[in-house]
């Protein structure tokens, strides 16, 4: 504060004024809603969504029952946590978030039915939901038809982009390319053996991995590729082939309960993961809970988030999550991605100054979330997230030790040229 003797205006009023001016920039940094007058409902909601002067309704649509419940529970918890935290801060555009939870029951037609109910009957402003690709594919036409907004948390195969979906997980190239480059560089890997569950995500992921290994790197090749039905538990034959071909790297995208059998049988067959490099794109802390840390210690997992990430955002997030859902809960990659959904939606609504889906779809590009547990993320024009890729080494206690982190954010590319 400079003294201006000419005016001699030293009144307390002036001081107050100056202090107020000095505070103004800080006010801009505070959450807007804390200060801004709550805008009129008619102005922020022109399409008849469930928005009142005090509340806005969103939907949570995951499997709370059925085979997928074990995976999707983490996402439900993360979304509820994010909503609670946003409400504590004053909500979205001055409105508290109310959520309606529906159960997809691990059944794809049910997902479509419930999505339609949320959009047509409850008029929710956004849906946080879906987990498997199949449930997303079932819901997508409904969301597009009724012009809803879906925040989808799971890492997935790509080959999709919709105005009505924000993909907060990684598409396949974000997970795969960096991990293969890393294993080739760090471990001098030349030969790869692919093992996956038989459905669209592993097949597409392995196709991308294969193209990368064969066309974009030199001296590397794929020596085997095998698929097993979902829920398969007999991996002895493929384990014998592994012993025979001795690949430098076992690259797996086996999902769900099959993982438990796969890693136990690997260990029983004497394949020691401390010596044999295995890299997976499908095992998070959630899966290790079932597999057992002893059975998988030494394997590498390629994700964008691990519970053990050492940054202030993550420490806060892990503490809040455990406070809400219990000390014993573990947080996997998808759980964190699910946590991003409500936050990104809130920031997009505030940027757009409206709950209208069309405005949100446009405003999404460039939304930045600096408080993300995984670190800084940003929404790309293609509605996927720029995010880092990390490689974790599985520990006996079920956590991962981060051994690599991509230096830059990786651009999402759901339709990778040269990899299809």
């Amino acid at each position, binding site marked *: 504060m400079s003294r201006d003797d000419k005016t001699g205006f030293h009144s307390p009023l002036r001081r107050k004024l100056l202090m107020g001016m000095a505070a103004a920039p800080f006010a801009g940094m505070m959450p807007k809603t804390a200060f801004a007058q709550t805008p009129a409902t008619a102005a922020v909601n022109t399409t008849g969504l469930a928005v009142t002067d005090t509340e806005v309704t969103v939907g949570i649509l995951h499997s709370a029952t059925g085979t997928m419940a074990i995976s999707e529970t983490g996402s439900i918890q993360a979304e509820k946590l994010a909503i609670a935290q946003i409400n504590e801060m004053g909500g979205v555009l001055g409105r508290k978030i109310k959520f309606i939870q529906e159960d997809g029951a691990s059944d*794809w037609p049910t997902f479509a039915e419930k999505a339609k109910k949320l959009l047509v009957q409850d008029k929710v402003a956004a849906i946080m939901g879906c987990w498997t690709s199949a449930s997303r*594919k079932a819901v997508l036409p409904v969301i597009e038809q009724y012009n809803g907004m879906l925040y989808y948390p799971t890492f997935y195969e790509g080959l999709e982009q919709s105005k009505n979906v924000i993909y907060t997980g990684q598409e396949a190239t974000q997970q795969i390319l960096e991990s293969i480059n890393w294993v080739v560089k760090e471990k001098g890997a030349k030969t790869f053996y692919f093992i996956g569950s038989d459905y669209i995500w592993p097949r597409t992921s392995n196709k991308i991995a294969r193209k990368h290994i064969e066309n974009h790197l030199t001296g590397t090749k794929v020596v085997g590729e095998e698929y097993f039905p979902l829920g398969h538990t007999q991996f002895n034959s493929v384990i014998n082939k592994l012993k025979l071909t001795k690949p430098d790297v076992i690259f797996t995208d086996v999902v769900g309960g099959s993982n438990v059998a796969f890693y136990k049988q690997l260990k029983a067959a004497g394949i020691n993961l401390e010596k044999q490099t295995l890299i997976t794109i499908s095992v998070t802390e959630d899966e290790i809970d079932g597999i057992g840390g002893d059975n998988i210690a030494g394997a590498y997992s390629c994700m964008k988030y691990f519970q053990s990430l050492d940054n202030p955002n993550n420490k806060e997030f892990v503490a809040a999550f455990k406070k809400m859902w219990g000390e014993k809960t573990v947080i996997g990659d998808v759980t964190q991605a699910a946590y991003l959904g409500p936050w990104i939606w809130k920031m997009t609504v505030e940027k757009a100054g409206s709950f209208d889906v069309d405005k949100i779809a446009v405003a999404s590009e460039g939304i930045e979330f600096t408080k993300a547990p995984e670190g800084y993320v940003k929404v790309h024009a293609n509605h996927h997230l720029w995010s880092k890729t990390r490689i974790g080494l599985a520990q006996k206690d079920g956590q991962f030790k981060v051994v690599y982190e991509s230096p830059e954010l990786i651009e999402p590319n759901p339709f990778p040229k040269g990899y299809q």
Partner: protein
Amino acid sequence: MKTAPSFLNRRDMLALAVVAALLLIVFPALLDGFRLNLVGKYLTYAFVAVGLVLCWGYGGILSLGQGVFFALGGYGMAMYLKLEASSVENTKIQSTPGIPDFMDWNQITELPYFWQPFHSLPLTILLIILVPAFFAFVIGSAMFKRRVSGVYFAIITQAIAAIATILIIGQQGYTGGVNGITDLRTLHGWDIRTDSAKFILYFVNVVLLLSVVGLALFVRASKLGRILVAMREKEDRVRFSGYSVANFQIFVFCLAGVFAALGGAMFTLQVGFMSPSLVGIVPSIEMVIFTAVGGRMSLFGAIYGTLAVNFAKTSLSESFPELWLLGLGGLFIAVVLAFPNGLAGIWNDYVQPPIDRALKLRPKHQGDDVAKQAASTAPAE
């Protein structure tokens, strides 16, 4: 047995009128578009349940694999719709434009030969009826000619349902795999996703269902229906009387299969996709449960049972997303324990007699006597 109930007697007429009024007038008047579409979806399962009443309730053939026939119809329709949605303009971002997206994702570059007929709508409709009929005929011939029946037949149909699921999921390049066939848009140029289309499809569905029920009533009232009941009660005696039991069994199994396939085709049209989650053991058994709740001897009960169970399912899961399965399970146990003859049993015991008195019909009906005897002599199949 003195007289068989005649086709479309007063009682059936009344029941048919009531169900038609409910489905064609009451529901469309009371329910909004979304709920009406849901009822439409439930009613597609009722096709299967009606088939099961004939096949299981009357013929005594318990099939735990009706999901397979539902899927044959549903996938047939889905294949047609998918081909229409996969025009070259719609799919130009693919490596091979003009084929369904999931084929492209699985490195298939040419439309497989068995997809070719589904370019044509009349051929598709024909195949939706013929393929399940043929498939049921093959299974039926293989089993009934060898006198496989009862529990063994049930187990084999269940195995077929499991195989069909594995086949569909495993051959994802040709079938869409776990995801199923999704993103269906138009039927011969008519957008099936609009609200008005859903409304029209609902009525098409109801009329088709009522025709199916009419056909089933006709079968029940015919000599064939009497033979079915006789076969269920004493198979050998029918055989010794000179009837070819196997042929009757094959016929009713095929008929139930075609009914299920019609339901499947309507399901695809109304829900907008088809997936293997409707093929396997669980959905097949669920359909038997609908029939059991409705009362396995009652064609109308099949419709009410299907509606009741699915309404319960939807409303319970909406109110208690994490606990609803337990509630539903409890409800089943309660119904089966308290009312072994299902909703139709309650109706026949408590509601029908006063109505009959009002209509001055005879208090007891021949057909029901047979049915009740059957229920008491053979409580479990």
